């Protein structure tokens, strides 16, 4: 009898404790994650003197001067434009190349398909720095240096394999019978692919585009090596803002905030499928 009672009580007590601990742990973790972002944001609204002189949790003299500097000076805002151009180019090229490749891997058996599929991923095991030198020399000699397409192509080396892997996972989830039914219905392959297949894996395409964006947007080394003026990305500009008067802390912080925003917007659209993307589409 008493044993039964105890057995009854224990889970209740345990669950109560869990209710109390859970939110606290969560809150601490969230604060830990958000502190640097908060600090970046308040810095962007402070003047340089306030940043350097005092410790304030909220700007004493709220100012938009830092943002104005960025949005009015072409040497700053062109960084964003350049980044956008090569990131978009890269996303488009990666998807156009990876979609047919992923379809082939998901639907056909051919000689060495498994090895080739794995070999694709080994490209990602080398650090980008390894490729900086060959790319720099190659692009200089074919006069692609300091163009958007140069950076986009260089990033494809890393993004195409990833895109193939993610898309293949999503495509494998589509039953082959759908393809066959479409062919029986009379669809030609291109028509089937664009009208029926692409809409079915739309979330996968969104996630793939996001992962390409994520790599290309934050990648610094290749994009800095392969550009000088015309195609210089924002991340590279941010690392070179040491002026005669020292670091311009406020402007740098504002640039940082503006760099985070596009990523936050993009991730919002794929938030429901992102986990599947991290698992390379295999959930």
């Amino acid at each position, binding site marked *: 009898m008493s044993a039964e009672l105890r057995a009854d009580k224990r889970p209740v007590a345990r669950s109560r404790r869990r209710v109390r601990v859970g939110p606290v742990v969560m809150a601490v973790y969230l604060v830990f994650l958000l502190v640097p972002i908060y600090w970046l944001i308040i810095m962007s609204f402070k003047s340089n003197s306030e940043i350097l002189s005092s410790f304030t949790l909220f700007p004493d003299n709220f100012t938009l001067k830092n943002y104005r500097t960025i949005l009015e000076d072409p040497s700053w805002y062109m960084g964003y434009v350049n980044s956008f151009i090569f990131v978009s180019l890269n996303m488009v090229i990666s998807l156009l190349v990876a979609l047919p490749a992923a379809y082939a891997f998901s639907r056909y058996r051919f000689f060495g398909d498994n090895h080739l599929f794995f070999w694709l991923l080994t490209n990602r095991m080398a650090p980008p720095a390894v490729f900086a030198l060959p790319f720099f020399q190659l692009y200089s000699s074919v006069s692609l240096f300091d163009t958007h397409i140069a950076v986009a192509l260089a990033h494809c080396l890393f993004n195409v394999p990833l895109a193939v892997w993610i898309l293949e996972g999503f495509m494998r989830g589509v039953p082959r019978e759908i393809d066959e039914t*479409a*062919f*029986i*219905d009379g669809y030609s392959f291109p*028509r089937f692919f664009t009208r*029926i297949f692409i*809409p079915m894996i739309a979330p996968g395409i969104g996630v793939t585009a996001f992962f390409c964006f994520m790599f290309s947007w934050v990648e610094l080394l290749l994009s800095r090596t392969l550009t000088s003026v015309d195609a210089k990305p924002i991340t590279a500009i941010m690392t070179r803002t040491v002026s005669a008067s020292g670091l311009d802390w406020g402007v740098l912080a504002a640039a940082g905030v503006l760099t985070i925003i596009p990523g936050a917007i993009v991730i919002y659209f794929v938030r429901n499928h992102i986990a599947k993307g991290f698992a390379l589409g295999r959930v």
Partner: protein
Amino acid sequence: MSLRLQSVSKISNGETHIYPTNLELQKGTMNVLLGPTSSGKTSLMRLMAGLDRPDTGKIFWDGADVTKKRVQDRDIAMVYQQFVNYPSMTVYDNIASPLKIQKKSSSEIDAKVKEMAELLQLTSVIDRKPNEISGGQQQRCAMARALAKDVGLVLMDEPLANLDYKLREELRFEIPRLFEASGSIFVYATTEPEEALLLGGNTATLWNGQVTQYGPAMDVYRDPLDETTARVYSDPPMNFVSVRKDGAGVHFPDGQLTRLNEDLASLSDGEYRAGFRAHHLEMSDNQSGSIEFEAELVVTELTGSDTYIHVDVMDERWIGLMPGLQTFEVGQALKICLDPQNFFYFDKDRKLVASPNRKPEESGI
């Protein structure tokens, strides 16, 4: 319109899926492929559809060789066991999709889609997406799309297998009606003999990648030409016992002897396998001429209105169908009886030599 398979075979990964098969399906016929799981029903259908290429043999459509013709250019439609629809399109667009490819006028498409939706009771869900309707409706949508195309050959690969009992019954009665309306050659794969009989037409029984017999459903059911066909076309499978025939009659393994009536007297002496269907196994001996056996009950299965009993008799396991709900103890000794009138006799090569409605003379022995 006719479909002819000429010694068509399929081997993949060194495994023979379809042994060389000859089959001719005529215009406007219902053809049922009957066989257990992995007997080659789907493989054969994929060959007919052109989704797979045969390793040997040729396929003729209306006398023309279509073996190498693309799926897109063939006069076919197919319904899968899984409910295959285009998830991003509404029911309406699903049914209309093959018609749009055929470049029909929009008024013609509209009329056809509405007609098919009416026929398959999809009118109320016509604007919904496939994942917003029930499984039965999804399969009806797939059928509507297949039939809207107005093709010469409609392939249905166990279309009812994934549906629940009620819906299956419902659609099972609709299929002959749809078939009548279409005038196409229907090929319908199923694992259930009952379904093959219900749909009628012709039955091709399949076993391990071989068509063991093809002919009108009732003929194949009444006179399965070999033991395998008899097993396939019987649910539960046909029961067998080894017997020896001589001048005196038929000897059973337990020593019992039964006299043969005149029409079976011409059966030559020797060893045979005698087969009979589950519902011919009976409990009480109220008929003259029936033989009684001692049996031990192994399992009983209640279906609601009937009872299946599995019994061990003379080293054989038999299954009997008893009317009503019977309560037996497992291990109980039972007296069962059989009427030799109902026996099918198969020779050493497992070929049919006599059946209840086929005398030895007719089979040429």
